[in-house]
């Protein structure tokens, strides 16, 4: 197959962009540990300058742009996989938190300028909550009315709004840009992309909407309600966008367990976790939607299982176990009955059937002749297991903490889970997943709010403090465990123990929901 010139140019630009991005990333990381006169810093700096020189000889500029959830380098979309996902997280977080729309290097960029730029980034950590204006879209209610009435005056009103919003937005962008020092050959463009709190609010709303949507499917007694799959697709896409925008927050939302109904929450959590894992694996967008839908419906066969068996405290007898083990193929049957089956990805059938199949063939159902277990089934198998064991159920004395779950699952790799997929999953949730309740060396208790992509920082996440050193409950700040005390040159806080929230009468999800409710 021949490659189109445009394709090879894109591939070349992608390589250059990723190379440059990794150099910026390593210099930035090094700057956090060493002074600019340190040998390692100088070496990283020289590497970055050399890469920049090479790029700027061929291109007129080297520009990174963040557009919604897409990162572009010199107008070419950059694609990330599990190998370099940390780069995406790094630049996406930096851009989002600092409201950067684009970062451009021009020919003539000097060593000092780059040092100043990196040191500025280091010394001015992004403010999380920034006040800004976002182009206001009509509210759902307003939109619905407009769709119904089609009144022109709504349009006029929107125009007025838009103009006002536009002026304010430009002013704000200008003000933000002025906060940056003047680098002659490095240009930063600021954009108004909405408050973080607002985005979290949206994410929460989408979470609960998704839950409602799933309930709509299952509300008719034991039969799937034929809702339009396009809505499901759109919902999954929206969820995914929020995962890209704020993965930690969405993963935090998966700590909502047993709200309304176990299977609903579980299915949605599995969907979110699967999307996160799929993203890291470098799945295409279409595949991600299919994965999301498949995960969303993976347990639909349980609608046929009597609740007294599903929720039976204690061990199931042989007959009950057999009934439970019918849910995979009952799920396939349910999905096949959906009148809108036409739009349902075939993968959903596989996942419904195979999410209890194990790597060592000891799971269920046992196939008569089929050889392959689908990739999506293996993904869902991992995230399903994780979410299930971190949820308290009548038949389980106590649920595992996220950290315990990862540790337990690590021992089952190769038997229960695909080893490679599990490693990618573990690098996503880390050893100390979002939502983990921890005890700090200070005696404070905290909840993990944001994980780090770098393995060496897995136990240095960002936390929300929920008690003080004496155990008094507080609505504490968010602290970064990776920050070193300038005086002592040591970490002021470290995790000493993972705790089970149930034992302390805490519900971790409350903290995530409370954050957006204010």
């Amino acid at each position, binding site marked *: 197959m021949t490659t189109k010139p445009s394709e090879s140019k894109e591939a070349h630009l992608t390589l250059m962009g990723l190379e440059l991005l990794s150099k910026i990333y390593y210099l930035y990381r090094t700057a956090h540990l060493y002074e600019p006169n340190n040998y390692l810093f100088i070496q990283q700096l020289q590497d970055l300058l050399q890469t920049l020189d090479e790029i700027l000889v061929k291109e007129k500029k080297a520009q990174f742009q963040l*557009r919604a959830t897409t990162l572009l380098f010199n107008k070419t979309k950059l694609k990330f996989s599990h190998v370099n996902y940390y780069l995406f997280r790094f630049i996406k977080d930096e851009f989002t938190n600092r409201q950067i729309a684009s970062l451009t290097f021009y020919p003539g960029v000097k060593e000092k300028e780059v040092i100043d730029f990196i040191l500025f980034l280091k010394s001015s950590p992004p403010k999380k909550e920034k006040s800004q204006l976002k182009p206001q879209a009509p509210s759902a209610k307003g939109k619905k009315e407009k769709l119904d009435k089609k009144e022109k005056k709504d349009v006029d009103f*929107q125009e007025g709004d838009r103009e006002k919003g536009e002026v304010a937005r430009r002013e704000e962008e200008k003000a933000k840009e002025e906060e940056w020092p003047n680098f002659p050959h490095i240009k930063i463009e600021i954009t108004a992309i909405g408050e973080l709190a607002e985005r979290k609010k949206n994410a929460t709303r989408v979470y609960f*909407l998704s839950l*409602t949507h799933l309930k709509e499917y299952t509300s008719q007694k034991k039969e799937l309600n034929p809702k339009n799959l396009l*809505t499901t697709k759109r*919902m999954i896409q929206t969820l995914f966008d929020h995962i890209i925008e704020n993965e930690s927050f969405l993963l935090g939302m998966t700590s909502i367990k047993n709200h309304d109904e176990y299977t609903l929450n579980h299915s949605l959590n599995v969907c979110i976790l699967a999307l996160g894992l799929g993203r890291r694996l470098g799945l295409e967008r279409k595949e991600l939607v299919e994965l999301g839908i498949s995960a969303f419906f993976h347990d639909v066969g349980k609608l046929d299982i009597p609740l007294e068996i599903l929720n039976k405290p204690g061990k199931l007898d042989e007959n009950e176990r057999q009934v439970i083990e019918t849910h995979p193929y009952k799920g396939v049957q349910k999905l096949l009955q959906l009148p809108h089956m036409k739009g349902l990805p075939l993968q959903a059938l596989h996942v419904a059937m195979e999410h209890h199949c194990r790597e060592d063939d000891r799971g269920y159902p046992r196939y*008569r002749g089929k050889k392959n277990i689908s990739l999506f089934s293996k993904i869902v198998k991992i995230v399903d297991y994780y979410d299930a064991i971190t949820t308290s159920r009548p038949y389980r004395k106590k649920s595992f903490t996220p950290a315990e779950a990862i540790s337990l699952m690590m021992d089952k790799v190769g038997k229960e889970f695909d080893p490679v997929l599990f490693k990618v999953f573990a690098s996503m949730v880390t050893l100390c997943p979002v939502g983990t309740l921890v005890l700090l060396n200070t*005696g404070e208790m905290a909840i993990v709010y944001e994980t780090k992509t770098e393995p060496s920082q897995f136990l240095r996440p960002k936390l929300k403090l929920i008690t003080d050193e004496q155990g008094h*409950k507080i609505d504490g700040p968010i602290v970064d465990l990776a920050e070193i005390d300038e005086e002592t040159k040591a*970490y002021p806080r470290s995790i000493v123990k993972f705790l089970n929230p149930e034992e302390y009468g805490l519900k971790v999800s409350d903290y995530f929901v409370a954050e957006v409710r204010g």
Partner: protein
Amino acid sequence: MDHPSIGQFIDNLQQKFNDYFKLSPTLDLEVTETAFFLEGNKIYEETQLNRSLPFLFYKDGITRLSFHEGLTREEIIQFFQLLLEISTLPPEETDIVVFLWEMDFSHIDYFAPDDFLETKIGQETEIAPYEINPADFTQGVIQLTPEDQATLLHYGRQAKINQDRDPSLSPLLEDKLLLPSLRKLELQREEEERLEFILQKHRELSEEEETIHLLVETIFMEEKIQPFTQVLHSLSLLIEDTLRQGKLAVAAHALDHLLQLKSEFQKTQPEKVLHIEKTLDSLQEKFPPLLREQMDQKKPLDMESLFLLFEFIGPSSLNLLGYLADTYPDQNIHDLAHSYIQKIGAQNISLLLTIADDRREKITLTIMQTIAQTDDAHRLTYLARFLRSHNPHLQKEAIKLISAIKDPKAAKLLLPLLNDPQAEIRKEVARAICRLNQPSVAEEILGKVKDKSFFERTPTEKKALLSYLFHLPEDKASEFLKSFLKKPWWWSPASRLKPALWLIETLKDEKTEEVKIFLDKVGFVRNKRIRHALQGLRIKLESSSSPDYHSPGQSQKENKKSIFKRK
């Protein structure tokens, strides 16, 4: 999109975009129900919603559409293709946001607020609100357990030791948990390669085929009849779909699975067998039009699978084979067709005649060969049909095949063709008759040779007929041939010598001993020229056993240069 005028339109549009991008890197269009706004100015309006382009976006919640610098021609084309596709579908079956999201254009994006989802979700069902009590976050004390206290104490001591050694040393939990786990979590090079392989394999696997496998497994597992039949029905629909998509191999594979299932259930679950049979019957009926649709598209087809499907359909697929031969005349399907036709022929040979046709030469040849190979009592009658074919290839093949059948009727069928206007056919018949060697037609052949028209026959025909008479055991034939040599007087004109010379030429190719016996019977010949020719024949016969018979540099073919040619 291939039309030149559309190409021109796209070029112009791209030019206009590029002109705009010189002024600003992004072109933001505000979308309202009936209009597009650019920088506050209405630039397009269509108030009739069913024709309104903005409404196509607006109905799905898009409020802004942006085009960015770097927009390529391919993106413009894809974008318009998407619009075209969507505009042809009923509005309730489309959501442009879903499609745009999947397309993931590098230089086209949109804004659709999340709350638009609220217009589509939650109309019928609500979930219980998530209740939290803000006071719970700030009121009260959480007591640490004795184990927690012990851990803290232990940590304090350990941290002190660490700090005394090196303040940057990692604390307790990291030492204990992180370092060993990191090694377990790090992807090794071969694992990264395996991951690539897993993804690639996932993309290469035929989704339909895997799903068919899956449904078969589901059918196998299901014990109750009602769900069993439901899944069976779904499988049947999926098979139809795969066929519609031209995935013949997948459909063939699926049938194979179903047949296997049927045989597995045969002894133990007769009711399920009945349902499977019903499904198979229904598929048998549905397949022909679906396959024909595929052929109509004239795309390359997986011929092997196609013939498997033909076999599944049974004799009624013969028409499809005929259609295939017409639609794909250049396709080499001989071997596949041969085996298929043999199978159908084994069931009912006369059916094969329904698709035999002068224009479908290859297929018809295969059919004729199949007919010839059977023991069917009517095979000669069936083959005789092709003697009247307007396709000389088929006619000749029919002659050959008929002559290979040792049946007295065969010669009777062939004889009339000795008068065929086409020399090629006559030649073939003469050769065939020669091969047949049936005394029952001796009289008739004699009549043909005696007839004046014999002079007009081609050398091959003459040779074949004379050879035929030569081999007849009857004295009548032998006497007649002798008269060829003996009759001419020494002064006979050259034209009267011809039959003798033709006979001598014929005898050159016959077996030496038989010819010698014949010549002995002939005795003295009056005509000098004939005698000379016979002398030459005798020399040839003598030397035919000698290895030096052929003179150097002279091929056997040249050596056989015939007197017939001299005519």
